[in-house]
């Protein structure tokens, strides 16, 4: 290398180092404790994405060892597909050129600087290479290679490459596929709310299909901290489809770039092929409105014309983008994930239907856990996620936190000093925003920025889980009350009778009328259990009539109805009242008698179903059940009727039915106003006799 080259190289090196230095706050390397979190995050996110694409259930191990002073060694290992030898340089060398820059779909990696940043940081702070072992299934041996970054050419430099059999240190078995990264860096391990531990704990909650472990060692080799989060589900997240951008979210610059790069010869085909939600008819309408001839060549469109097109995009009616680019965790798995990390007594989860904001599909999921080991004296724990990636910093400035604070939690049984802000109590709330385009407040990508539609969706989801909590608490206190009453009449009262009769030398009185007087109510008790042999989630409901009059009721139970579950065992018959709601009419219950109602659901695993909601129709109260809110039920029926109608229309049009929002025509209909005559007409007639059911109860 001659002098000139050396200087030039140095300058380049300085400039990249400078870039790193200047931007380390949003690259995530601004402080020593954060550097190690960022490094783990880049590596683990990559592993999870890779496993998901290769349909492998991830096993991820993280090991951190303090070496000297402010330096530590980080080892991460996964059982992913590995990286083919020739791609290693690309994966570890493309600094700030993520491969996902153009793709529109929900991925974790979207948010980070990439593993290259880790290699770079290691090199800049310790001067050492990053050691990579990669094994792909089709190769007979693994590739061992040391990587650095050529700051001049902005690419990875390989050295010390060799091939060998890879034996797993822990199991002693040969590794058939996977990736192992060992790197040195200036960083500091810190415990607490902002730590690698917390990051992995949160990651494991939203990735119940992953097994993740962590070991942190000090210089002497003794364990400072460790964690082991074993997978609770064998269901891999759905493969997400890449989608094309939707015109509603397009900015002028992007449109111009797309026009420049387009190979289409005509504007109509350009619009049809490069965007989602644009039908041939819509394409024509857009061009007509923008006064652009259909046959024009995209490359020749001028800036002025592009501008008018942007306006037309917002005016012309368009289909919503497809939603299979999103990968929600789904409420049952959120429940599993939460229970894996937090010991609680109650969990309420909700996955909202996907929605669209400015052409970007998004979906909100919320989980709330309550009781158990959670402490009750402080603010609740908030677990924020964007596309399954934990957000650990800037909690206060984040949209997810703000929408949580906007809920009046006192209505749902949590303390909220001052009537606003983060509620207090033994609870934790998880909020997951899945979106093809998560908007952050800053490059640090730690806080989601304000968006009306997202805010509203989260708020609605909060209200739903809040209602769940409220029901649970009410039920809890009713259950306690009922338990006390049962103890009173079944244990204490007979003893009072026996003892007083003994003392006085009298006959024991008949207690039945006394019990009726004391209880003077109808009690309902439900027990959920797991039938191992039949693999059924069983629900047994006992109803005691402790009043002086005969009672007639219809009992309704909520059950987790889905494609995979069915009402397998149901000797009492009854019928479906709405989605996930079954109803049984009971025979008249005479005073002092009780009856049992039992049913079993297939398609769930043990522990999946641990809280049932029981409702009733009829006169008087039932302790242990809620009076059916007919208005709410009506609303649900109409929503379902609407959805059914949408499917029908789609089927007629020959459009494949997908898990998306339906066409614009129907999404314009506001489901909150069920009086729309069109919707009322669509209610399936088979269900109508149920509307008359209440008449029988009088």
């Amino acid at each position, binding site marked *: 290398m001659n002098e000139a080259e050396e200087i030039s190289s140095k300058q380049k090196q300085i400039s990249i180092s400078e870039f790193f230095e200047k931007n380390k706050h949003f690259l995530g390397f601004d402080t020593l404790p954060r550097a190690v979190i960022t490094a783990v995050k880049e590596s683990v996110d990559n592993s999870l994405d890779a496993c998901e694409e290769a349909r492998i259930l991830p096993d991820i191990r993280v090991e951190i060892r303090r070496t000297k002073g402010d330096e530590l060694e980080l080892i991460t290992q996964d059982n992913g597909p590995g990286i083919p030898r020739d791609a290693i340089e690309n994966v570890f060398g493309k600094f700030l050129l993520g491969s996902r820059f153009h793709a529109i779909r929900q991925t974790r990696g979207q948010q980070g600087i990439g593993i290259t940043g880790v290699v770079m940081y290691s090199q800049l702070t310790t001067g050492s290479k990053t050691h990579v072992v990669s094994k792909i299934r089709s190769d007979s041996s693994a590739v061992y290679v040391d990587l650095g970054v050529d700051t001049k050419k902005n690419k990875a430099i390989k050295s010390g490459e060799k091939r060998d059999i890879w034996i797993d240190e822990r199991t002693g078995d040969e590794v058939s596929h996977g990736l192992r990264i060992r790197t040195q860096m200036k960083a500091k391990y810190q415990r607490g709310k902002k730590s690698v531990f917390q990051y992995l704990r949160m990651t494991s909650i939203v990735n119940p299909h992953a097994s993740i472990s962590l070991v942190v060692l000090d210089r002497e080799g003794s364990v400072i901290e460790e964690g082991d989060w074993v997978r609770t589900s064998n269901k891999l997240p759905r493969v997400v489809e890449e989608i094309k951008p939707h015109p509603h979210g397009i900015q002028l610059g992007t449109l111009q770039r797309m026009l420049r790069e387009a190979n289409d010869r005509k504007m109509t085909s350009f619009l049809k092929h490069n965007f989602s939600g644009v039908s041939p008819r819509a394409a024509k309408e857009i061009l007509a409105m923008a006064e652009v001839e259909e046959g024009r060549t995209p490359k020749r469109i001028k800036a002025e014309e592009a501008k008018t097109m942007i306006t037309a995009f917002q005016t012309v009616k368009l289909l919503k983008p497809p939603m299979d680019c999103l990968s929600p965790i789904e409420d049952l798995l959120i429940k599993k994930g939460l229970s894996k990390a937090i010991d609680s007594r109650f969990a309420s989860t909700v996955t909202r239907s996907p929605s669209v904001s400015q052409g970007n599909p998004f979906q909100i999921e919320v989980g709330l856990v309550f009781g158990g080991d959670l402490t009750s004296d402080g603010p609740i724990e908030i677990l924020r996620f964007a596309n399954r990636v934990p957000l650990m910093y800037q909690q206060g400035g984040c949209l997810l936190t703000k929408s949580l604070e906007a809920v009046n939690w006192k209505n749902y049984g949590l303390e909220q000093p001052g009537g606003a802000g983060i509620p207090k109590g033994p609870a934790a709330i998880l909020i997951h925003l899945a979106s093809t385009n998560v908007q952050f407040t800053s490059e640090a990508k730690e806080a989601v920025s304000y968006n009306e539609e997202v805010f509203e969706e989260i708020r609605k989801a909060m209200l739903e889980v809040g209602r769940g909590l409220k029901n649970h608490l009410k039920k809890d206190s009713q259950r306690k009350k009922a338990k006390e009453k049962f103890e*009173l009449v079944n244990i204490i009262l007979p*003893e009072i009778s026996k003892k007083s009769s003994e003392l006085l030398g009298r006959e024991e009185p008949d207690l039945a009328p006394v019990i009726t007087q004391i209880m003077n109510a109808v009690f309902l008790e439900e027990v959920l259990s797991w039938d191992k042999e039949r693999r059924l989630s069983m629900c047994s409901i006992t109803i005691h009539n402790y009043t002086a009059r005969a009672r007639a009721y219809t009992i309704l139970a909520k059950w987790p109805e889905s494609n995979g579950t069915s009402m397998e065992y149901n000797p009492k018959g009854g019928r479906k009242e709405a989605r996930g709601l079954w109803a049984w009419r009971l025979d008249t219950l005479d005073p002092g008698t009780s009856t049992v109602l039992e049913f079993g659901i297939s398609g769930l695993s043990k522990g999946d179903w641990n809280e049932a909601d029981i409702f009733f129709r009829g006169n008087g109260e039932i302790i242990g059940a809620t009076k059916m809110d007919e208005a709410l039920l009506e609303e649900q029926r109409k929503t379902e009727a609407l959805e059914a109608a949408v499917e029908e229309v789609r089927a007629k049009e020959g459009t494949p039915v997908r898990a998306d929002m339906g066409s614009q025509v129907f999404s314009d209909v506001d489901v909150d106003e069920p009086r729309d005559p069109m919707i009322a007409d669509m209610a399936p007639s088979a269900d109508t006799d149920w509307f008359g059911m209440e008449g029988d109860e009088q």
Partner: protein
Amino acid sequence: MSESTRKSREQVVDSLHQVAAEMHNRMQRGEPPRMTLPVRSKSNISFDNRLGVFKYGKSKTVRDATKLGSARQLLRTLHITEFIEEMIDSGKSSTLREMYYISEGWGNGKFGSQNESNNLAEDLEIVTKCLREDFKLRPEEDGARIIGNITVEERNRRGEWMTINCRDDVGDSGYGVPYNVEEEKLKLVDEDIDFVMAIETGGMFDRLIENGFDEEARCALIHLKGQPARSTRRIMRRISDEWKKPIVVFTDCDPWSFRIFASIAYGAIKTAHISEYLATKEATYLGITADDILAYDLPSDDLSKQDTGALEAELSDPRFNTGWWQEQIKLMQEMGKKAEQQSLAKYGLDFVTDTYLPEKLDGIGLGY
């Protein structure tokens, strides 16, 4: 109380059975069992003109088996009844604490705490109009100690009567008052005193003895040990009745000491059902009064939050509804101060016996 007011075995068992019968009768009528009790709070005590002490008024509370907690209490009451009957039959007695431990074997009738068993025993006394001595139940705490020239006869555990002079036959700790001070156990034989002085704190009791106050002022000194036990109040009542000697009470100046005096002179809220046996209406509050704090310029402490609350409650306590007490309480509230008996030591160890007590006793016509 004289022998004639004490109940026979049969009467006691009969009264207890009436409690059980109330429960049984109601169950036979198809109603939840229950027990009717007077309300035991300051809102339900009133001055009984005939007896000259405070007794429970007419407010009743019903404890019935419509709630789990009350039902358990009814069951426990029946267990106590059975236990008392057994003791009466076998001629045994037990302490309240022993009964608490015995209840371990009562299954669902087991007590939750010692306090609960004490309260239930008191409830039974009230409902049956018997005394806990009738129930063969003894308190845990011992009574007061006495020093002074009085002579008593006490029947010892071998059943022999022994004569004790409370000045000459005792050490510095004085004569220990037994838990039972009724006629069958204790006789007041002889005295050579002019009055009795009841003292709240042990420190002051010992100071007066060291200074030879009992002989100098010709009095008997009784150490109350804080809130006085039933037997302490009962023996003062007997001395007052049988020897017609004045009783003066010398305590700290704080709201709690006022209550000590009220329980001696007017009757305690908790034992208002037997006030006529325990309260000595002739007793006089000697000091330390709120006036004394000012008059003697005594070192004082600020009233705590609890003190202030207690004073406020006393203003509406019917026992303190006299001009003098209202004045004292209000004065104390104004000052926001309280003082201990031993604050008199500000002027030397002999000040209390040489100056303070002679002046105060002179003020109520007991000068010597």
